[in-house]
């Protein structure tokens, strides 16, 4: 379990430490607060990487998922990253901290050869508040760099792993 410094949540890596009870809470959060359908919940449950857990209540207050994909115009296999954070915690740094931890976990596995399928982390940011307030071309802590907009006009960002190659990619 990761400590989040002075803040009031912990991160749990559900790939390394599966927890059925926590997954039930995540599915309930998705259903009640994110409005996901049962089909979406079933799909995303298989993609869960990190959960953020409120230290007081023990309930999940955020979750991140990743899946392997060749996004948009990039034409190279990347871990597409998604996150959901409950409304009460959105103004805190939980989303950014979780994204950094997820990227570092994936990069460590790339570096040690455990999983070299994805050449980096990719995300599309739908939230206009984030796009308005975090409009750096390169996010300084996570090193996620702007690489254009998707067809919905959402900002696309990528961070390639050290040693990443385009040899398995090509034009879309």
């Amino acid at each position, binding site marked *: 379990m990761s400590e989040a410094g002075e803040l009031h949540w912990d991160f749990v890596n559900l790939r390394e430490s599966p927890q059925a009870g926590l997954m039930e809470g995540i599915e309930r959060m998705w259903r009640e607060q994110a409005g996901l359908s049962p089909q979406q919940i079933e799909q995303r449950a298989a993609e869960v990487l990190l959960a953020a857990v409120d230290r007081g209540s023990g309930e999940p207050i955020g979750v991140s998922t990743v899946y392997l994909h060749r996004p948009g*115009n990039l034409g190279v296999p990347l871990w597409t990253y998604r996150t959901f954070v409950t409304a009460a915690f959105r103004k805190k740094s939980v989303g950014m901290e979780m994204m950094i931890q997820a990227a570092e976990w994936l990069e460590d596995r790339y570096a040690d050869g455990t999983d070299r399928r994805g050449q980096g982390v990719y995300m599309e940011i739908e939230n206009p508040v984030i796009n308005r307030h975090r409009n750096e071309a390169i996010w300084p802590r996570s090193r996620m760099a702007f690489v254009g907009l998707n067809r919905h006009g959402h900002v696309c960002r990528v961070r390639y792993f050290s040693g990443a190659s385009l040899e398995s990619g090509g034009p879309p």
Partner: protein
Amino acid sequence: MNEPRKMRVETLPQPPDDAIRDAIYAFWLRQLGDMDRGAAAQRLGRVLAFGLDDNDAVVATCSAVPARVAAMGHQMMLVYRSLLAGAFNTPDNWMAMVTRAWELVEAQQAAGEHAGCIGLLVPVTEAAVPAARPEAVWAENGLIHAGYGQRGFPLRVRHFADARLHIEGVT
């Protein structure tokens, strides 16, 4: 086919002296055919660096021009282009020009030039480069793979450290 040849890359002094200016004009005439003197003068103003062979003849030039880039969310970027004479058009020479161009525009931006541009965009128009240099991040200049342009060329970008996006309806 000509044997690949090495060249050395020089930064274009500002303002360029007559000898360099005339050597670059002569290179463009050899490579491009007839060229209007006014167009050449305008193009010279955008040149960042040039390549010289062992006899100090100009064999390459590169420049960067500010433009809105559709593939990059219509952000203003400095768009790179280069011209290398046949035998000098190798991945190593091409990359050396790109790296020098990045170093120059980064220093210029830090000194207050290129306001509104978020970074450098390099269309990889040299056909041998993608296979020769498939790294997602080029170590010598930090340019990252950013997809493919409308003409099918791979695109590389590097943003300035303090650059901020200007996206209509968002920022």
